[in-house]
């Protein structure tokens, strides 16, 4: 079951290739994005390592269960609700971005709410599945999509017009002071491992600390690709103007002999399924956290059945409202604020986990 750990991390890295991450990074390409990425790589890997080591102390237990032991109920409820809302927002951002991408690049004539509707139907229905089933689904979709990821990777790196000079030009800015926004979004690409706070209860085999370098390596390749490939293919100046640099990058790919000629077709097909999976995992974790926060098992069976619907449908409503009321630029700037909040939440969570692990260690003695 250890493999699910890697799947979750890998999924979060891949899905952020389309989200705001490359956009933010590339906007700050001359003012500290590169150094922020390096810093994020370091901090992210260390965070993940600490998290894994701490969770190893509690085999087969999810965060709500762990907190049950060591925290006052009201703090625990508040904190879990805070985390749950955060997870819902993470899924919401992914969904909103993909509504925008679908509208722009797949069916421009279709109104946004139709995309939103069908995405939400899928995500809500799937988020209610048992955790282990969600993991099976994730595994299946990732493995099915893996060939497409490999093809796109090969295609961009062997592209005849890939300009390494542009990459070198941006590379000269590697030693400027790290930019805050870039740091938060780059760190977010690692955040897949945090999903384990719920999935730990079903994925039983423990995290191997010695493998952290492997994840770090994959993260390096991922960040490098996310950042430099659009620069190499679109140009170091023009890339700053793109809202979705990677969709544009994918549009530079041409398959000479395949029935689907334009790379963008393949890319979007791939990313619709990947981002849906990501959103459903976030919402699933969010839902489970909320359930844990209020100790759902104590309630009557009828309440147990209805409450998850209430929570998810409320968030569907919020998603619709955000889509209707805000412009994409506003969503973007709000997301940037959220990335910062999330970052502090992550540190707080890891700090708490360290504390729990320390308590646990003392109990044993």
């Amino acid at each position, binding site marked *: 079951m250890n493999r699910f750990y890697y799947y979750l991390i890998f999924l979060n890295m891949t899905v952020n290739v389309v989200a705001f991450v490359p956009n933010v990074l590339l906007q700050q390409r001359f003012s500290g994005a590169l150094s922020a990425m390096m810093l994020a790589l370091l901090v992210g890997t260390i965070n993940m390592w600490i998290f894994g080591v701490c969770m190893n102390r509690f085999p087969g237990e999810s965060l709500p269960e762990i907190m049950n032991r060591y925290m006052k109920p009201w703090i625990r409820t508040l904190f879990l609700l805070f985390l749950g809302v955060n997870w819902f927002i993470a899924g919401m951002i992914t969904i909103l971005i993909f509504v925008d991408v679908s509208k722009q690049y*797949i069916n421009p004539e279709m109104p946004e709410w139709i995309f939103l509707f*069908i995405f939400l139907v899928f995500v809500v229905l*799937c988020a209610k599945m048992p955790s282990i*089933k969600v993991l*099976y689904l994730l*595994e299946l979709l990732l493995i099915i999509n893996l060939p497409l990821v490999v093809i796109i990777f090969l295609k961009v790196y062997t592209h005849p017009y890939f300009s390494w000079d542009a990459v070198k030009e941006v590379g000269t800015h590697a030693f400027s002071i790290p930019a805050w926004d870039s740091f938060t979004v780059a760190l977010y690409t690692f955040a897949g491992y945090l999903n384990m706070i719920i999935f730990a209860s079903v994925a039983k085999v423990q995290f191997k600390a010695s493998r952290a370098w492997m994840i770090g390596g994959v993260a390096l390749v991922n960040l490098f690709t996310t950042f430099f490939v659009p620069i190499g293919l679109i140009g170091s100046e023009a890339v700053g103007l793109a809202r979705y640099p990677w969709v544009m990058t994918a549009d530079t790919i041409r398959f000479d002999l395949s029935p689907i000629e334009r790379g963008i*077709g393949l890319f*979007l097909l791939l990313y619709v399924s990947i981002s849906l999976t990501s959103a459903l995992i976030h919402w699933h974790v969010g839902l489970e956290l909320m359930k844990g926060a209020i100790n759902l098992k104590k309630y009557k069976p009828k309440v147990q059945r209805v409450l998850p619907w209430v929570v998810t449908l409320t968030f569907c409503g919020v998603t619709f409202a955000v889509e209707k009321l805000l412009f994409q630029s506003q969503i973007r700037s709000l997301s940037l604020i959220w990335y910062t909040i999330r970052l502090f939440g992550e540190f707080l969570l890891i700090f708490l986990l360290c504390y729990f692990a320390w308590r646990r260690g003392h109990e044993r003695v």
Partner: protein
Amino acid sequence: MLKSDPAKSLLTWLQSQLAASDDICLQNLESKGKKAQFFYIKSICDQTFIQDYLLIPFFEIDSFHDYMSYLDNLFQTSSYINPEKTLNQFLHGSVVFISGTKIRLIDTRKVANTGISEAKIESTVQGPQNSFSEDIATNLNMIRDRYYQPSLRIENQEIGHQAPTPIAILYDEKLVDPLVLEGLRQRLAEIQKETSIILSNGQLHRHLSRRKKTMFPTLLLTERPDRVAYNLAQGKIAIVMQGNAFVLLLPSVFYDFMASMDDLYHTYWTSRFVVILRYLGLFITITLPSLYVVSTAYNPELFRYQLALTIAGSRISVPYPAFIEVFLMLLMMEFLTEASLRLPKMIGSTATTVGGLILGQAATEAALVSNIMVILIAAVAISNFVIPINAMGFAMRGVKYLLLFISTVFGMIGFIVGLVGIVAYLVHLDSFGQPYLRLFMKSSTDQEEIKRVKEEKG
């Protein structure tokens, strides 16, 4: 009611329970001071057996005591328990023997349909050719004959409270998942209460699955003894039913429905190739109609322009939107399939000729559908038949309409979401506690998990 002397009142009680059928036979015999009554149903009892082994000895053996000991040593003979059981056994072809205070039941059931025929539905090229018969004893014999294991356990049971049908539950005691077995027993007990009569394993399958309205089969029906033996060796449970040439296997997962026994009998790469072909066929039969709608009505730019132009050119004279075209032709194809399934063989070929040749040809010439459409429909129909287990093939036939609908309404996005949604639905299903679809499944019952459960139970 019969406590004082069962032998006297049993006959009258039995007769009062039975309708006055002409095939019910009561023989009063008397010879050399012995008196006896034989009571049986002619139509399901083996008359030659009764003649040779019951009647002739009755007249040849002098002492009554010797005859009784002869009778008791026949292995078909069982002793009397209570009137209800007696009636039940009587209805299943036992002769009721009454003499004085002695009652014996002799099983002389004659089964007309014991013939073993060739496998018609799951035929293989190189594997064993025979399929199950409709007789439970013959079927058990065929399974035992392929699975020589001391740990094989057979449990006889009856199901349906009004007209009980004998069933046998088979499993390998060492390999079976105790949780699955427990679940099965519970379900069977519930069915016993709810259902008055069960006639086929297919019906039992519907009652066994917890969700009453489902599309995908979660238990496997097979007519091949080798498949049953192979699955028993994997720790599955088989249910054999009287009067049924199909055996129910559980738990069954998605991959079981995509596997043919030939996969085991061919060389490794050949069978891998065939398996890949099968999944490709599955993919094509589900997606092709929806892809056609999506790529003509929503996103023609997805394909390279030569292909997009060819499709558009072929559609140029078609007077209605793509989804109506696809839907009409699919419907015609379904009618053809259904017609050729149900029609007698003589007329079947006419139907296919009229439908396939004339309709396809004429429809394109009349410009009601495009040429490409006809090719596409043929591809969909053929690739659907690649799925080895019919139940899954039928389910997939329905699924493509669902996908077609979503793609028609929501376009490309709908297509992807629909496809992922189908996968998610399959993942979400369960078959007796086993996840229905997941990657990296070695065998459908996880041996380590079973070991753990057994250890916990002590």
